[in-house]
């Protein structure tokens, strides 16, 4: 009987033949922590090992993205706890406040290959499944365990297969498909499962789109979304992470006769711009249905939609609107990494955004954390490309619509929730 991708990955990592439902211990390729969760890992590790040595300093990385640069003493202290620990342990992969969102930084620095088992104190670690890695968010205890002996337990999950065909209409993009999917399957529609994505729409998609797709698997309670790199994405990854990537793609791809728990097919032709309305990701409507809703702030960024392609899509909408946004909203763009910020500068985007009144920040998790750029006061309504709109998430008593970068910018232009097709004529 054939194996799915996650089964092959777990077999490689555990050295065992596995079946769905088995609990196995996997070797960890990279165990990471951020400025959030990281200090808890360090303090717990030092306590339980009495300041012992980590299993392998080369397989540990730290990223600072939640509150970079630190805006409060406690945050500054936490970051220092990590820096000091890294120094003491000889951990050199420390991506400090000048780098950007962790997973993206790891990717850009060639630390992620298909089939890698990667841990992080971030529930959206699994966006690295966009290049076929089994990355997963865990709590600090899991991280500490991995630092002690380099392994961690996993249940081999069922795999859901999703095939996506068709082409997006102008003004519609991968994020809209995701929002549609969250609405369709619900907040627990991928409960504990691995998800493999196939189909022409996926094969043609950019790395940015694959990141969006896999990051949002979390919002359907999935374990990881997996796409084996191909085409330009594969070329990009080989350049960053080396030729071993090519072997992994061959050996770890799913067997043709693999068994899936579900086999879903979608066609994005005719899909409309979608929005997750307040106050849940699965409260989904078309933007048309919700259009005209009052808004106070627009935010484009986050690990789900903060890459160059996302910002370029927003730029296209702004350009179509003659580089004018509404006076009644505050609009904030946060690139995901320093590399993305540079790309935006080189493309001349930042200049045009600023001319229009948009604020462009340094790369961080920004709004997502509610302790950084753009916390909403009670009663305010935001439009955002982040991945969660739980009540009060970005400020007590505030509400958020989750949308694509294009819909976000269209809303900034009009000052109310707006379908980007109204601008991209």
């Amino acid at each position, binding site marked *: 009987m054939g194996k799915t991708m996650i089964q092959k990955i777990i077999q490689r990592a555990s050295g065992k033949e596995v079946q769905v439902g088995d609990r196995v211990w996997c070797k960890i390729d990279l165990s990471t922590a951020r400025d959030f969760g990281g200090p808890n890992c360090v303090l717990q590790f030092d306590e339980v090992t009495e300041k012992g040595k980590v299993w392998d300093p080369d397989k540990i990385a730290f990223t600072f993205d939640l509150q970079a640069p630190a805006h409060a003493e406690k945050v500054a202290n936490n970051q220092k706890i990590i820096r000091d620990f890294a120094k003491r342990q000889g951990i050199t992969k420390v991506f400090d406040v000048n780098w950007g969102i962790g997973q993206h930084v790891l990717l850009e620095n060639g630390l992620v290959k298909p089939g890698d088992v990667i841990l992080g*104190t971030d529930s959206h670690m699994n966006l690295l499944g966009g290049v076929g890695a089994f990355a997963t968010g865990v709590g600090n205890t899991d991280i500490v365990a991995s630092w002690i002996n380099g392994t961690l337990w996993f249940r081999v999950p069922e795999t859901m297969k999703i095939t996506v065909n068709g082409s997006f209409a102008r003004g519609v993009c991968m994020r809209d498909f995701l929002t549609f999917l969250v609405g369709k399957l619900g907040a627990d529609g991928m409960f504990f499962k691995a998800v493999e994505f196939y189909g022409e729409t996926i094969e043609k998609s950019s790395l940015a789109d694959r990141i969006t797709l896999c990051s949002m698997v979390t919002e359907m309670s999935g374990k990881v979304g997996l796409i084996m790199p191909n085409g330009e994405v594969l070329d990009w990854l080989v350049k960053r992470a080396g030729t071993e990537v090519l072997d992994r793609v061959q050996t770890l791809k799913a067997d043709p006769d693999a068994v899936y728990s579900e086999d879903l097919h979608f066609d994005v032709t005719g899909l409309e711009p979608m929005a997750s309305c307040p106050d849940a990701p699965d409260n989904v409507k078309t933007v048309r249905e919700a259009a005209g809703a009052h808004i106070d702030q627009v935010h484009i960024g986050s690990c789900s939609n903060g890459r160059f392609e996302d910002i370029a899509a927003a730029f296209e909408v702004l350009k179509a609107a003659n580089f004018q946004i509404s006076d009644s909203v505050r609009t904030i763009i946060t690139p995901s990494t320093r590399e993305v910020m540079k790309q935006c500068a080189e493309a001349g985007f930042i200049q045009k955004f600023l001319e229009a009144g948009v604020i462009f920040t340094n790369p961080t998790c920004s709004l997502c954390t509610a302790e950084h750029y753009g916390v909403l006061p009670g009663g305010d309504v935001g439009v955002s490309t982040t991945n969660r709109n739980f009540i009060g998430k970005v400020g007590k008593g505030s509400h958020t619509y989750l949308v694509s970068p294009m819909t976000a910018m269209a809303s900034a232009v009009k000052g109310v929730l707006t379908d980007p097709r109204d601008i991209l004529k």
Partner: protein
Amino acid sequence: MEQNVLRGKAWVFTDDVDTDLIYHNKYLAETDPKKMAQYSFEYYPGKEKFAKEAKPGDFVVAGRNFGTGSSREHAVYCLKELGIPVVLAESFARIYYRNAINNGYPVLFVKGLSDAIKEGKVKDGDELEVNIATGEIKDLTNGNTFHGDAVTDLEKDIMASGGLIEYLKAQAAKK
């Protein structure tokens, strides 16, 4: 087995209670688990005073997908520190589940609980009797009964050791 039978008041929550509602983003910089307790459910509409009013021994009762969202272990610590002996839910979000197991913190999967909550078969303030060993749950206020499944397999061994770190230590000692 008397020690497995617990009595306490129910605090009832909906489906999809996310980690921001259990323990908000705003307090992520906290590193001391003891201090985390005071922020429990601060952002949950109508349950803002949970941390002040819940008594050790009270139960958290919820529908499907409890703990969805962030990987923050704070959301487990805070309830554990408040003395909530077990969380009863129809199902738990993946990372929340791991975090609970890794801390030796009991969770029971209770079939039909989501609908029972919606139908008012278990309400805020009801007196519950929970047998952690057998999974039998009685609502003493209205006589309704439920059955919860405790964890099995590897998770059970980890729980029995008191958490992941203790489990690993015990394994290392065996070798």
